[in-house]
């Protein structure tokens, strides 16, 4: 049964007609028209679809859209724009931390969740936080360095 579901998407109140049991990922990419969360496995095994739900990192593919009614959902689009990049996006660009880039929006979201709770993570802590995210191109080292760089910039006052 289709019903109206209301949520806060990247800071804006939105409402969407969907089956409550539809996957959050399908509804985000379909009717809600945001593409930052990507389809990678549909089984909470790769991190491509990561979003923040009330600040907590979740696999959108393994979540029913009904479960986010009334909650705040953030995708990578909620981080920043090319004109006003989030320090994470700026650091990823600066260190060219990406190849195909398919993993990146999920990783950015996961890194944001980490930096929200730990402003000064070391390499092992970043790796641990991102461990469920897969990157097939092998860009891990640059990603680890970019997250650390963004954390430093934010500690130094870069606006997030």
């Amino acid at each position, binding site marked *: 049964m289709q019903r109206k579901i209301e949520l806060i998407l990247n800071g804006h109140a939105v409402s969407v007609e969907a089956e409550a049991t539809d996957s959050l990922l399908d509804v985000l990419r379909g009717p809600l028209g945001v593409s930052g969360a990507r389809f990678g496995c549909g089984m909470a095994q790769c991190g491509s679809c990561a979003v923040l739900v009330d600040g907590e990192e979740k696999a959108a593919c393994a979540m029913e859209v009904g479960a986010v009614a009334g909650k705040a959902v953030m*995708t*990578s689009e909620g981080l920043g724009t090319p004109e006003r990049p989030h320090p994470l996006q700026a650091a990823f660009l600066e260190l060219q931390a990406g190849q*195909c*880039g*398919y993993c990146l929006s999920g990783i950015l979201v996961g890194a944001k969740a980490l930096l929200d709770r730990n402003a000064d993570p070391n390499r092992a802590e970043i790796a641990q936080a991102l461990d469920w*995210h897969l990157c*097939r191109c092998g860009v891990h080292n640059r990603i680890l360095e970019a997250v650390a760089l963004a954390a430093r910039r934010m500690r130094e006052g870069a606006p997030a």
Partner: protein
Amino acid sequence: MIPAMLAANPRLDRWVSFEPDGRVRIAFGRMEYGQGIATALAQIAADELDAPFASLRVVPAATGDIPDEGLTVGSMSIEFSGPAIRAACAEVRALFTAAAAGRLGCDAAELDIRDGAFLKGGQPTGLDYWSLAGEVDLARAPTGDAPLKTPDRLRVVGRNEPRLDLPAKLFGEAFLHDLSLPGLRHARVLRQPSPQARLVSLDEAAVRRAVGDVDILIDHAFVALICATEAEAARAHAAAERAARWDGVRDMDPTLSEPAALKTLPYEDFAAGAPSPGPSNRRRITATYTKPFLSHGSLGPSAGLAQFQDGKLTIWTHNQGVYPMRALAARITGLEPQAIEVIHGQGPGCYGHNGADDPPIDAALIAIRRPGAPIRVQWRREDEFGFAPVGTAMLMELTAELDASDRLVDYTAEIWNTPHTGARGTAVAESALPGYVTPPKPAQRLMPDGSRFSGGLLNATPSYDIAATRTLEHVIETPIRSSSLRSLGGAANTFAAESFIDELAEAVGQDPLAYRLAMLSDPRGRAVLTRLAAMCGWADRGAAATGRGLGLAYDRHRGRGAIVACAAQVEVDTEVRLKRLWCACDGGLIINPDGAKNQLEGGMIMAASWTLKEQVKLGGAGVASVTWDDYPILRFSEIPPVEIELLNTRDTRALGLGEVSQGPVMAAIGNAVAHALGARIRDLPMTREKIVQALLTG
């Protein structure tokens, strides 16, 4: 001499033109998928034209708009497209310089170009490419006479220009997967469990109970579910899987997952190289190495779109080439190539022939049967693992003969594998269509020197001074859809050869580095290996069998490509932990050093993952490992720091780097593990069981 790709697409305006808005339009036939090729080729063009890098606009790839350069494969873009676009730009520069000289009434040699503007005696002339564009006709062929810049005058080449494609990937929309077209319909194909399977029945009512609004298409064994949304298509597909009955499903023998089983299948033999050595009293050493079937493991399952309208088919794809896609679609649909347009979009890294060719063909087959609306097909994870081609398993039996002074004088590589490019030009959907016949074996591919090309022979013979070498390749009828995976047989062959060299050094009681240097006369190779040894602290390697190990390996890719040496430091107990990796590389002229390092490192991490973790498991009706749980790859917490140095970067010729670091790093890890354990693992992946086994057998 005119580079081959330019000769094949001779019209200069197909490569370069000047747009009224002050931009330079450049086009080439190579697809960007995160390897940085668009940026590198733009750097080459900007340099040869002396136009501002920021003024370059790379034309999105589509049939008709870009030169036909075939497939983007084999790390050959820099080696083949680079010279083509460079020569095209040099021709264009010469034509414009002549036009400017005509206008100014001076000699062309008196003119120089800076930021796209013509200077005379260092002073502006008021002329630039754009003001002259109206009077220079670029719809012409190259002369082959335009002078190229000498390496010392290159300014943009050799610079770390940031990648043109990366920003979009950090801000949301970038991929073909994100493309939304008006009236789009979402479809899924109910795959035959195995290629011979016939559909007995489909309980359509059961599918409609799951999704009311579903269009069920059945043509022979080709079944598609077409819906308004992706979520509905997924539900309809899941219901159809339960509601379908198939006949003629062939079970896959799970024991074929092991490379040793290759020897039990029918094969064809190809021998090359020196004649058989015959009996001798030389010392003879033999060892066998294996690598299992591997998945490309692209992070995003493949997607494709198609629309059929007024007899014209449009396909959107993220595959390795728009012209090959057009040819494939033409063959399968029976349409004339002229009736097909193919538009390229960004996709997840493919690393060879993954599933990317398939969903667009699925979508095209549906679109032709349902004209009008654009059709989108998104493969599931299980489809990408289960139906995309896999990289072939390999078994390598190596034999060496040493002379009285322990020098390697005779080398034989006997290789068992399935064809490395076997599934090229095919789609998985084909076998479901009426009248399908298994395609004939593709014609033998030949190298420029007339010898037989086989992916299984790449790097089969190591690049040392060895008096006599030979190969014997057994090409097996593949039990599973297999096709090209990054470096083809190159990585596995280098893993085997460079593990073997360490074993030879050990057998004669020599240091592995010294043993290699003693049979390596190429000065570039010696420089690379010596530099690597310094980087990794080889001199302090320490004793064997302590649980900590340091190993190195060397390769000149295909005997004539980039020269690479890698080292690995590991700790081994019940598993192998990578502590550090190093790479020294002479890839000739480097267009973008940061991009080059990114490629080399990505190759190293992927190959480290192959070495320690990966194996496609066969079973059921085909592939049994269809999730990331069944097919683990290296994770963030397992990634070691990597150090890379580039040597000889201002050489005249640029060499491909996308698939040269895998083999050396695999062997370096193998050699480090052997050093740590005092026992060798010859079969990949190096899992817990293999460690135990190696320790037990010594």
